[in-house]
């Protein structure tokens, strides 16, 4: 037993050096040759830097909305609502989101709203919306920005990220990227 404790202590120390020290150092060293230098992927526009993968809150009507978030898109934390699918309080919240969306988007039928626009994501930082969620917002944005609807539909087509290798997983739109592009389109027209 006694020899076990000494062996265990010493083995623990050397394995800490190896797996918490050397392993971490190797990965950290390698991070400098990766595209983002291990600091997270960023997008720069007009001198401002944004994290591409960390969703942002878009609630203004002139932008494509992002999904609701349980953490308000503040990436100091992360998490979902953790509401059960049949929780009455939760369903009332979703109903309120639907009502609000219909008020801001006159002419849109309830059945046209895809559920990702009225539900929170798992991380609260989802950077994406579905293609249907972008299309259902075209009318509102076109009117407010005085753009042709066809221009926006074309923008959505350009911004649609295909499944991985064209074969695996869902199609999606990065809300930050499409809104940055949207600002560019508006600017070029003025």
């Amino acid at each position: 037993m006694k020899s076990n404790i000494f062996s265990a202590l010493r083995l623990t120390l050397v394995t800490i050096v190896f797996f918490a020290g050397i392993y971490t150092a190797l990965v950290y060293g390698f991070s400098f040759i990766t595209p983002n230098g291990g600091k997270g992927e960023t997008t720069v526009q007009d001198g401002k830097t944004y994290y591409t993968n960390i969703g942002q809150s878009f609630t203004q009507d002139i932008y494509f909305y992002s999904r609701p978030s349980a953490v308000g898109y503040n990436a100091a934390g992360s998490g979902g609502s953790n509401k059960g699918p049949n929780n009455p309080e939760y369903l009332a919240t979703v109903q309120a989101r639907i009502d609000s969306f219909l008020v801001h988007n006159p002419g849109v039928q309830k059945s046209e709203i895809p559920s990702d626009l009225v539900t929170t994501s798992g991380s609260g930082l989802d950077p994406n919306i579905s293609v249907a969620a972008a299309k259902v917002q075209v009318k509102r944005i076109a009117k407010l920005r005085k753009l042709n609807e066809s221009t926006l539909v074309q923008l959505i087509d350009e911004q649609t990220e295909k499944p991985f290798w064209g074969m695996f997983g869902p199609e999606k739109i990065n809300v930050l990227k499409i809104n940055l592009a949207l600002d560019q389109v508006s600017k070029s027209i003025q």
Partner: protein
Amino acid sequence: MNTEILGIIVMFAATLLLALPLGSYMAKVYGNERTFLDFLFNPIERLLFKVSGIDARQEQTWQQQMAALLTINLVWFVLGMAVLMNQGWLPLNPDANPSMSGHLAFNTAISFIVNCNLQHYSGESGLSYLGQLFLMFLQFVSAATGMAAAVTVFYALRTGTYQTLGNFYNFFLKSATRILFPICLIVAAILMFNGTPMTFEGKDTVVSLQGDTVQVSRGPVAAFVAIKHLGTNGGGFFGANSAHPFENPSYWTNMVEMISQMLIPFAMIFAFGIFLKRRKLAWTIFSVMTIGFLLLTIPTIVAEMKGSPAMDQLGVSQPGGNMEGKELRFGAASTAYWSIATTVISTGSVNGMHDSFTPVAGINQLLAMMTNCFYGGCGVGILNYFIFIILAVFVSGLMVGRTPEFLGKKIEAKEMKIAMIIALLHPFLILAGTALAVSFPGYTAGTLNNPTFHGFSEMLYEYTSSAANNGSGYEGLGDNTPWWNISTGFILILSRYLPIIGPVAIAGILAGKKYIPESAGTLKTDTGTFGIMVFAVIAIVAALAFFPALALGPIAELFTK
């Protein structure tokens, strides 16, 4: 074909294709045969053992191995408590996060040494980088502990009679250096190339396009996430685990993380077959596990892709399925697949919030942890399955009137008693824990995030996840209270070490028995018929023990309009 379904099929196929060569490599490592990485790891291991004062060639009995295993786990626990309760003032704490309270540190330290990784804190605000790196170290060594215990069983089941079964330290260190370490480097590199951070700079402050000022937590994420999956640990760097866009930035990283968490449980089965030269037995085991896995997975995927009936009633469309608690980049199908993969193999990492899944998915996630032997965690999965093999051998022996034998060794009363105790321990811990939680609503009612049946499911899930050493949760549960931290902490200890000691003891006892060569009268254990027997034993034990509890939780929710 639907791209979401195709993605899942490819993930499964890729795991299998990678697990076959890895299994044969692992069999070589454990059999002390030559491998192509010897030039690197022979000197490293010699050095580590020399500094530790350990002779890794010294043969040990199963009792000596278990003593060594428990002792070193105790050292990690004490050290873990010390680091977590003092991280606030120790170095590598750029975000100035506080030290943990005693009961939270107790729960967290246990949770990480037992490979469960129940997390009653959020990484962003609950840990310093030093704390994170220490937990990362625990993820390496806890996975290697489970693998070492499985290898002891491999040695015990060899043809012949043995008193000693190799050396625990040898199995343990080789699992960590030769198997976990190199694959983790590859996985971490892929993650970093796809946007996962690896930095020590602390939180960043950014102004969003719309003008909101927010903070962005960062850290040495890539190194952490790699071992979190490969070691079937599942403890997330951030609160949202692998739903977080830094832990899991894209569908491609999602595939890589998915494959890496199922890789070693798959490979361990093939290593077992190759090591013992019983490949057919390994394939029978793998087939039974796969059937169990598919039976849980398919209804979950169907239910989640169809979406929530309550949402249909509100009148919105659900082209993407049930999206509450899910990320767009993974979609409902692969999140549903992940939710079952992570619960059968005891990873417990999540890429969507299980609390918000449909009741059908909830039933299957719970059943996955209640059976706890379809693939199973690093090393321990095969140990859990071994218990069911012993039970099935005994039942079949009674049915056909033959002496129960497994791999040429008689199964007698002592082994059966151990197997029964271990098989019953799991339902006992889950049901007794949940019953206690329900009996003391003063401690638990205020921690629930959902009313009625779903609230009950939150408590049932917490104890099931603890007893299965899984670590996922219905995260709505406000679980950082003395009640949850301490009660789950004790369940974690019992449900980790007894299911390791039990199977190793059975195997150790069998190893010492006389070997009886196979004859026409031997019950064959590598046939489909025997596979069905094992499956039936698993189904009966899990279904009979857990059905009433499931009926009060997700089943009741399913049938309530």
